[in-house]
């Protein structure tokens, strides 16, 4: 448990440090445009990552840096993408909110809420016909549960018994509005269940719980060929976007969120298990060292290549 939790802490700190560095690069004006950070939500991607194998397809949202990192996308080209560099994963065409790295099974973020869900269904459908039986996973926020495309995609996957994991990160906020104020039935898992999809709500701040659950569901999806729905309860410790003043949130709420957030919890659990404070701090320091190096390299890289800006519109 201790070894695993240390590994999880390392993986979560890589994401956290990447996001905090990104926030700083927004402040300095190096990263331009809309940026949505997943600070506080790191346990989801870190816990889920083990369930995916090479041929699998993962679709995420604009709050997707953590999922890209968890899927193995190197930090430097991710920074490069945010910074609009030629070395970015999409050469500067995607940006923070719409980047992809298909070589890593990361089929992309999406800046249209819920739009990745039917695409993931298609990736699983392709797997049925290309012999791969790939698992497709799609991550979306709980606010996306009120999008028609999500409902359509879930029913389509259920009807066809396709191996699709619907991973709903519930950070309670539909952008700037409380999700519980936008629904009458607060149980989001009732919706997939009504469509015949097994669904569960779990502690999304505990990477071990996420890992166990997603592995189980992934295995079941691969074997039985049916979709599953996992709701991860979590929180974002920052605004919906960088620059969001969050006047809609109370100090008390944020204080409680800081107690629940996965890195603080993992550090506390490790301390309780007898891990020295220095060892825990070293994890943070190592993540920051890696992130600073990657960011520096990305900053030093050439800007996106204007001479190619009209290429790849068509085959």
């Amino acid at each position, binding site marked *: 448990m201790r070894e695993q939790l240390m590994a999880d802490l390392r993986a979560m700190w890589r994401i956290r440090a990447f996001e905090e560095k990104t926030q700083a690069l927004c402040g300095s004006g190096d990263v331009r445009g809309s940026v949505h950070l997943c600070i506080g939500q790191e346990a989801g991607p870190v816990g889920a990552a083990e369930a995916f194998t090479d041929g699998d*397809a993962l679709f995420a949202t604009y709050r997707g840096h953590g999922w890209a990192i968890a899927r193995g996308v190197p930090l430097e080209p991710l920074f490069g993408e945010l910074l609009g560099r030629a070395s970015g994963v999409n050469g500067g065409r995607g940006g923070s909110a719409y980047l992809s790295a298909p070589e890593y099974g990361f089929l992309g973020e999406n800046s249209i809420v819920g739009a990745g869900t039917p695409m993931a269904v*298609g990736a699983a459908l*392709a797997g049925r016909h*290309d012999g791969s039986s790939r698992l497709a996973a799609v991550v979306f926020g709980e606010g996306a549960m009120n999008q028609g495309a999500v409902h*359509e995609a879930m029913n389509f996957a259920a009807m066809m018994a396709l191996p699709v994991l619907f991973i709903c990160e519930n950070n309670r906020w539909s952008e700037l509005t409380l999700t519980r104020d936008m629904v009458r039935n607060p149980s989001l898992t009732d919706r997939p269940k009504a469509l015949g999809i097994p669904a569960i709500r779990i502690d999304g701040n505990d990477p071990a719980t996420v890992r166990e659950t997603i592995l189980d569901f992934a295995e079941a999806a691969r074997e039985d060929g049916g979709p599953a729905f996992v709701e991860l309860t979590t929180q974002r410790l920052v605004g919906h976007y960088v620059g969001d003043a969050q006047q809609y949130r109370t100090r008390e709420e944020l204080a409680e969120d800081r107690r629940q957030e996965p890195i603080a919890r993992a550090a506390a659990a490790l301390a309780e298990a007898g891990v020295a404070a220095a060892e825990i701090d070293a994890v943070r320091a190592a993540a920051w060292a890696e992130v600073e190096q990657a960011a520096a390299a990305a900053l030093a890289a050439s800007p996106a290549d204007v001479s190619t800006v009209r*290429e790849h519109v*068509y085959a």
Partner: protein
Amino acid sequence: MPEGTITVNYSGAVNAALWRCLAELPETLLYGEDVAKPGGVHGVTRGLWKEFGDRVFDTPISESAILGSAVGAAMMGRRPIVEIMWADFFLVALDQMVNQAANIRYVSGGRLTAPLVVRTQQGNSLGACAQHSQNLEAFFCHTPGLRVAMPSTPQDAYDIMVSAVHCDDPVVVIDNRTLYFGEKQEIVTDRPPAAIGGSHVRRTGPGATMVTWGAITHRVIEAADRLAANGTPVTVIETPWLNPFDTDAVLESVAKTGGRLAVVHEANTTAGFGAEVVVRAAEAGVLRQPPVRIGVPDTRIPAAPELAAALIPGTERIAAEVAGLVATG
């Protein structure tokens, strides 16, 4: 019947093209509302399910899921052919075409592609309501990343479908349901898939160049025949591919017909694709007379056939307007 030909109506031509693509390309899938067991609401996909099994299937009435899953499957190497039963229904799921399919290749720098074909049909037919009568090709022409075709003959319906399925871009192929059960014609079915694009000269004459596409092409040809009978033959260029559009053929013809250009489409005129054709001619400096744009006026489409007929350009109106253009000297 000569080898490599079949005699079919438009609907049969589409069916034959789909059959060929499903048989020749194992990566193709065909799905949509009612396309498999029922064979399509217009019968176009009849029999394909029996032949090709689970590669042809019926879906829920879920346009976002149909188009979105096609995008996802195409990204992973399939060539989905999906049907949107009425072009009007596209509007509930345009996100997947405009925000998703059209962006895949560009944003990934070509490392991801979305080679899918969306079949749909559009336009007015007797008594069709305002939500089953629109002509929406301009929406797709205004979306970089998509290809758009509107055939009007069985041969083109066949050839364009085969080319579209082989094309590595997302392609929207728009039929007009009034064409499905037209007369049977002998069509050639054994040619290799052609590259997308191109146009047809349907009539020749020095009076003017008429550019048109889709079902209204037949009215344009009738109008041209009427003008020819009156001693003023004109050229008719049918451009079944709107993207890529055969601009060169149009410009060359306009230059040869006294710089006189008329564009005719069933869509309403404002921001219709005809406006784009006129501008391309203007930019090229080939116009010598004010161009004529013939389409539905900017109204909604009423259901009663008498009302609709008062809006949709008929042979007489087309002939009269083009006769006026020819008379400009």
